[in-house]
């Protein structure tokens, strides 16, 4: 069973804030899922040798590393989504501001 501290740590890493109730509920729910998926330990595999990240038979696709612009229409649509902006620049809070 995951402890409250472990759940709070996962929430911090995930950049999510949890209420007190949620910490307890997630501790029990995440633990039951982890217990279920733990059954993959029953399979006798050579983990390092058999782990394959790509299961498809697709081939590598290569191209020149060149910049291709989007259309002006697309650029406008993207800029208009910015929650905070100055002209066409995206504005955020300062990284070092407390």
């Amino acid at each position, binding site marked *: 069973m995951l402890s409250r501290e472990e759940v709070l740590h996962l929430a911090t890493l995930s950049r999510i804030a949890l209420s007190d109730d949620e910490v307890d509920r997630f501790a029990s729910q995440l633990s039951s899922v982890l217990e279920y998926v733990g059954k993959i330990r029953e399979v006798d595999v050579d983990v390092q040798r058999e782990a394959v990240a790509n299961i498809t038979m*697709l081939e590598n696709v290569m191209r020149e590393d060149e910049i291709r612009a989007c259309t002006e229409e697309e650029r406008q649509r993207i800029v208009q989504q910015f929650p905070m902006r100055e002209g066409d620049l995206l504005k955020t*809070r300062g990284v070092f501001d407390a």
Partner: protein
Amino acid sequence: MMNTFPTIAEIAAGLHTKQYSCTEITRHSLDRIRSQDAAIGAYLHVMEEDALATASRVDDAIARGEDLAPLAGVPIAVKDTILVADHPATAGSKILEPYVAAYDATAVARLKAQDAVLLGKTNCDEFAMGSSNETSAYKPVHNPWDRDRVPGGSSGGSAAAVAADLCVAALGSDTGGSIRQPAGFCGVVGLKPTYGAVSRYGLIAMASSFDVIGPFTRSAADARTVFEAIRGRDPRDATSGDGRNLKSQASNLKDLRIGIPKEYFGGGIDPDVEACVRNAIRVIEGFGCSVREVSLPNTSYGLAVYYVLMPCEVSANLARFDGIRYGLSEADSRQPIADSRSALEKVYVSNRTAGFGPEVRRRIMLGTYALSKGYADQYYTRALAVRNRIKRDFEAAFRDVDVLVTPTSPTPAWPFGATGDDPLAMYLADVFTVSANVAGIPALSLPCGFVERPPNHSRLPVGLQFMSRWFDEDALFALGVAYEQATEWHGEHPVV
């Protein structure tokens, strides 16, 4: 006009012979959505103006005597995880409530290139995470066969829209069963193409090594028509391809060898569902195909592998949603963050906490755990190794047979709230569908009967699943078309 829609081929014929105009079909679709969808909840957004503009363009082309593409004038709905430029794409999440898509997904651009009439965006589980559509941040979708029951998920809105004749076809996305399971629950046809057969450009990513876009339709032939329109390599998705490097397989019906994987008929399957599937297998035996039992020995690990790898990919993919460049931003500060983090990080936490629902949070945290130092080898890397074993099971089976036949889901649609506070109970609904995603192979679900359930004595559809080799969708269509010619299940419509 009609209360139930004709097939895609019939619409093409009807437009050609001027039995009806495209504008008439489109207005009819929009009227049906207006009058019926309040009780179903399939649509999150209707694109009336664009739909009528496309319809009028198709009518002009007909008047000029031009040849039409197979999907010209066909009313199609699009799952809200797939981008249509200048329209909302919420993926069923509050965090994307203010978002308007800046471009078309490739699958959508290919529908538009055929002059398909795009009707609107369909409801789904939040970021496609759910098997019942109950995690949508907006509203539930009601199963057209029994409105007290779920439509399945995550593409529940697309499935219900086709079932209730609120469109002729719909796009969905399938990561662990999100097209096939709701297709089964709603009594329509759903295709999960081979991983990579349809470009994922413009699909809001859930788990990138599993995600694929595919169609919902009323028949296997219609599924093929939509699939042919959207498939193929796209320079904007490096994982897309046409499988041309793979040898094509015979898809002559009599030559098809059918396998029944015994692991799919063990415990846990509803007896009435099993009876429908066994009947379907007898129908298929009647085609003269050879039918034999096969074994996929690692089947029981499929769901566990999926529920390790998928949350890992989710935790990485959903890191991009922070409300800085788009989406919900600093909307909710009910949970003040009192710690030493910087102002910027507090913004991230505040936006993500306000924007993500419980199932999404669960999966992000689960993936964060399974990828963290000390656990990654036990969970993530081990699951990759077991995934490879499952793929090899399929490779071995496909040396002896061409199509595997199984149930789509172990049960029919369940009542709202039935899985309660236990996420694992909902995850088990994917037990027969996940393996195709784990291995990357194509699979088709089609209606194969009904079961009756209290308290409403409703007739609930049962789904039959076919799986075939990588890029051998043709074998699924060949068997599907033959099965539909021999049975009437796909012609049944719910009373809406």
